[in-house]
């Protein structure tokens, strides 16, 4: 055999191993037989780490109005091993429950299939989130029920019954989240959606620990070394949002009885001033013991009040898209500000016109009057400007360019650098998409995708994206990622759009004329010049009413998108909402009370419940 001379090293290794094992056996002998202090340790004292919950951060609006604060709630817990001589009847009386409930709850807790963390030695949650009034009777008689404890927690309370989707709610942490983040333990509360979710880390603070001594029977013997090693909880951070609570409240009032949403953004900063969706609900509904019952009710409501239509609703933008179309077609050289096209009204082909106006129309008039054939011709001229080329290569290249420039307005993708919870992506159809649908690169032409020219067809956008696109026009060429938290780092997120500044004035003018003499002249506001664009989007039922725009014309301070589903004309249903919101924000109050009343009381969907 090889290495023969090294064979005695086996002995050395064997000795090393044996010595270590002998040392360990000797150590066991010392700990288990000679020393007595460890036995006493087991019998007498052990530590109980009691978690101290920090108060969650408060939430304010941009003018420092308090929106969300905390209120105490109480959980009842028990430790099975410590419960003895229980007078079930008087406990039920104190807790205001019946005996059947008590028995059912107990068996639920002890069923390991449903409650895998159960142990008879650790505190188990019996009832949660009782109010101060509920807890008063049991607090006085708690001494009669050994093994039962009261744990104080904090719940959310809302100053105004609005902005439920923006603020979000808190709820018990899920098993998956516990596994992902070791900060949480079973039964903790955490943000489930909205701001509460996005800024969970700031709002939650840091838990503290109180170290108590207890004996082997579990009895608390007091603090360990007078609390020397206790860690006091650190309160959560308070947040200031970009919302203007008055504007938000008005937006929700105006949407009453309708299905739709409103997004208002300050163009210079990307700060979201209002984000309303309808149907909505009072955020207080998702707090406390009623949470799961109410949640279930909201969930099964066919009008889907839980969905935030402002960020998750995806719509064909319809005529409101024409403003972007006008910009991109100019930039790509398809049209100039002087280009005119003929319009034959309803007889136009292949795209009909639903509006009544003269012919031929200029770009300004086309925006003002929302002329469909004009934008079809402009779109065609733009993507067909260099012909088709072999295998449509040139055409497809120009189409790609069109897609990229449209997307630079913030369309077709989520705002990934934003703090808005759950956005839908929207959709700007790509070349790849059409190649696939029409099964070849030559299977489609400008004519095939003509609906895109007027914002119908495959194009999808969320109200948030449309409001943001209005910011781009208001800023003549850039936007700041729309966001909800007021802080300066957000302002650094500037995105330039791929249309030069010089092409904007003509669109400005067209959008201004919409109010002066165009589709929205009825919603004109005295003393403030506004720019906007109506949209009436065909759907299966009644048309969706759209209105997008910004105000004032010079140095815009607010950009708004309004969508009312299945209502009718954009000029009738959406434009007044825009006008009233602009008035509220720019003048600080609404003077056209009659109009406000009328809009608020208009019901377009009788299934929408007030909550």
């Amino acid at each position, binding site marked *: 055999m090889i290495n023969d001379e090294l064979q005695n090293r086996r002995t050395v290794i064997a000795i090393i191993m044996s010595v270590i094992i002998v040392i360990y056996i000797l150590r066991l002998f010392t700990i288990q037989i000679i020393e007595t202090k460890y036995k006493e340790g087991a019998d007498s004292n052990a530590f109980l780490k009691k978690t101290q919950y920090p108060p969650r951060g408060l939430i304010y609006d941009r003018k420092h109005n308090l929106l969300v604060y905390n209120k105490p709630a109480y959980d009842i817990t028990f430790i099975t091993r410590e419960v003895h001589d229980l007078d079930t009847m008087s406990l039920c009386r104190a807790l205001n429950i019946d005996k059947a409930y008590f028995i059912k709850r107990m068996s639920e807790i002890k069923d390991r299939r449903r409650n895998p963390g159960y142990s*008879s030695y650790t505190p188990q949650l019996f009832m949660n989130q009782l109010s101060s009034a509920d807890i008063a009777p049991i607090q006085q008689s708690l001494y009669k029920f050994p093994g039962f404890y009261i744990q104080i927690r904090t719940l959310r309370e809302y100053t105004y019954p609005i902005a439920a989707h923006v603020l979000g709610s808190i709820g018990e942490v899920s098993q998956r989240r516990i596994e992902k983040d070791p900060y949480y333990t079973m039964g903790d509360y955490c943000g489930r959606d909205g701001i509460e979710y996005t800024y969970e880390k700031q709002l939650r603070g840091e838990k503290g620990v109180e170290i108590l001594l207890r004996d082997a029977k579990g009895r608390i013997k007091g603090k360990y070394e007078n609390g020397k*090693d206790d860690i006091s909880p650190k309160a959560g951070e308070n947040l200031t949002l970009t919302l203007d609570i008055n504007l938000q409240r008005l937006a929700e009032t105006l949407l009453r009885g309708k299905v739709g949403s409103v997004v208002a953004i300050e163009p210079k900063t990307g700060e979201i001033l209002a984000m309303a969706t309808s149907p909505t609900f009072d955020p207080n509904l998702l707090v406390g013991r009623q949470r799961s019952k109410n949640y279930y009710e909201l969930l099964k409501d066919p009008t889907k009040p839980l969905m935030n239509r402002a960020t998750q609703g995806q719509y064909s933008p319809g005529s409101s898209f024409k403003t972007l179309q006008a910009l991109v077609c100019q930039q790509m050289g398809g049209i100039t500000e002087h280009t005119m096209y003929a319009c034959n009204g309803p007889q136009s082909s292949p795209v009909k016109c639903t509006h009544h106006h003269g012919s031929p129309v200029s770009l300004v008039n086309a925006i003002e009057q929302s002329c469909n054939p004009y934008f079809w011709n402009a779109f065609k001229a733009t993507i067909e400007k260099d012909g088709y080329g072999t295998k449509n290569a040139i055409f497809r290249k120009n189409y790609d360019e069109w897609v990229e420039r449209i997307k630079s307005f913030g369309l077709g993708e989520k705002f990934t650098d934003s703090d808005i919870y759950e956005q839908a992506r929207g959709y700007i159809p790509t070349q790849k998409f059409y190649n696939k649908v029409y099964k070849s690169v030559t299977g489609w032409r400008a004519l095939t995708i003509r609906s895109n020219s007027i914002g119908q067809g495959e194009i999808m956008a969320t109200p948030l994206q449309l409001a943001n696109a209005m910011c781009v026009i208001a800023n003549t060429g850039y936007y700041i990622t729309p966001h909800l938290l007021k802080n300066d780092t957000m302002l650094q997120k500037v995105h330039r759009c791929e249309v030069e500044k010089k092409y904007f004035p003509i669109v400005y003018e067209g959008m201004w004329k919409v109010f002066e003499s165009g589709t929205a002249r009825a919603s004109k506001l005295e003393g403030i010049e506004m720019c906007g664009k109506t949209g009436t989007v065909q759907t299966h039922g009644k048309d969706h009413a759209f209105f997008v725009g910004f105000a004032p014309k010079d140095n815009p301070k607010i950009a708004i998108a309004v969508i009312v589903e299945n209502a009718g004309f954009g000029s009738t249903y959406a434009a007044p909402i825009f006008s009233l919101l602009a008035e509220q924000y720019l003048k600080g109050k609404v003077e056209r009370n009659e109009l406000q009343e009328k809009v608020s009381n208009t019901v377009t969907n009788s299934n929408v419940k007030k909550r």
Partner: protein
Amino acid sequence: MSRNVSIKYSLDRTTIIFYVLLVVMGWLSIYGASYDFDQPGIFSWDQRAGKQFVWILTAFGLGGMLLLVDYRVYNFFAYVIYGITLLLLAFTIVAPSSIAPDIKGSHSWLVFGPISFQPAELAKISTALALSKFMSAYNYRIRTWKDLIPIGLFVFVPFSLIVLQKETGSALVFISFLLMFYREGMNGIILLLMVFAIILFVLVIRFSIVPILDNQGTLGILLAMGIILAIQFFYAYFICKNKKEALYLLGGIVFIGGASLLTNIWYKINFNYVALGIVLLSAIYWTITELFFRLKNYWLIVLITIGSTLFCFSADYLFEKVLEPHQQIRIKVLLNMEDDPTGAGYNVNQSKIAIGSGGFLGKGFLNGTQTKLKYVPEQDTDFIFCTVGEEHGFWGSTLVLVIYWLLLMRLLKIAERQREAFNRIYAYCVASILFFHLMVNIGMVLGIMPVIGIPLPFFSYGGSSLWGFTILLFILLRLDASRLERI
């Protein structure tokens, strides 16, 4: 030449018996650790014992399958397996958190749907195979220091990848290959030096907080320097038998030491520097002795002196800068420098209480109270030995240790009876890895090693580690069974 010998006859049954014994005892302990009076049975899938039962059955199946694989496969594919392992380790570091999530601060798991595993577990096996293949080549033997470089690299690459995954515990296991290197011809001095380094480190850190006189130096440095000088004296007097030179050294030390004490009466001096001066002077003294008086063999002592002096004076720095805060605290707790029974010391303190309360006979199966009250964290994984200590007392824990000892001795015996160097080297790898795990894990539970989270082989809860150790062992059994196939 080869002949076919049925695996039934050539399989080492003794090892299998020890293996099964340990696995079953581990399973019962896991049951004990999570047992509650009103809980369902030992086979219930809801409970860890039930899950472990499934892991055990699958591990047995896996072991059986490994025995059916041709023994030549391991030698043939050793490098391939090693390469794949390195790729997996690297992938784990860079993989997105959807595939490699952070679990308890370490980034070492790969998760594919319902299956998750730790490439570090595989790394032990594949490194052992790759080393066995490399070192069993005809032209390879450990003769000089240079021969250690390639095999050192074989160990170092997976080691550092695992450190990058923040699994320092699993990475440290790779130190165990030193035992195998020693068997294959590495100079034993390296092992001694390692022990020496640990002793110096512990002394310097432990007594760095003990000042002498009026804050004129620390006891740690003085003790360490004293040990270095003592070694010099011992080496010169007893090993080289140069009694004269050794006594000169002693005289010099006493002289300088005395002189500085005397000076101290009028002028306060820092004794750390006195000790440093003495040690450096001694290094110069031995260099001169070597060069001018032609007394050989002092190079080694000079090297060790300088090396260990540098080490001692940088130990504080290493401790503060290289180790992470939680590792520092674990070591401080171990060395009794900090009393922190609710924080880092909590686990160890509770573990000692649990074991200590077991007494001689233990509290009986399923009667442990400390583990029931969930006082000992990780009681079914890293701290599983507590349950044995509490429920079966001194005799039970000793029995477990004796079974491990018997298994290790058996593995050494198997190693030495191999005709193939590949098999022998692999066998030593297995024995070394198991020994290291045992030493660190039980040492930690007994409070004589710092808290390093590595499992107790075959015992701790968890499929990944049980499978890992089973594969490690059964590859050896397969290799061993082949010894009769070759003539």
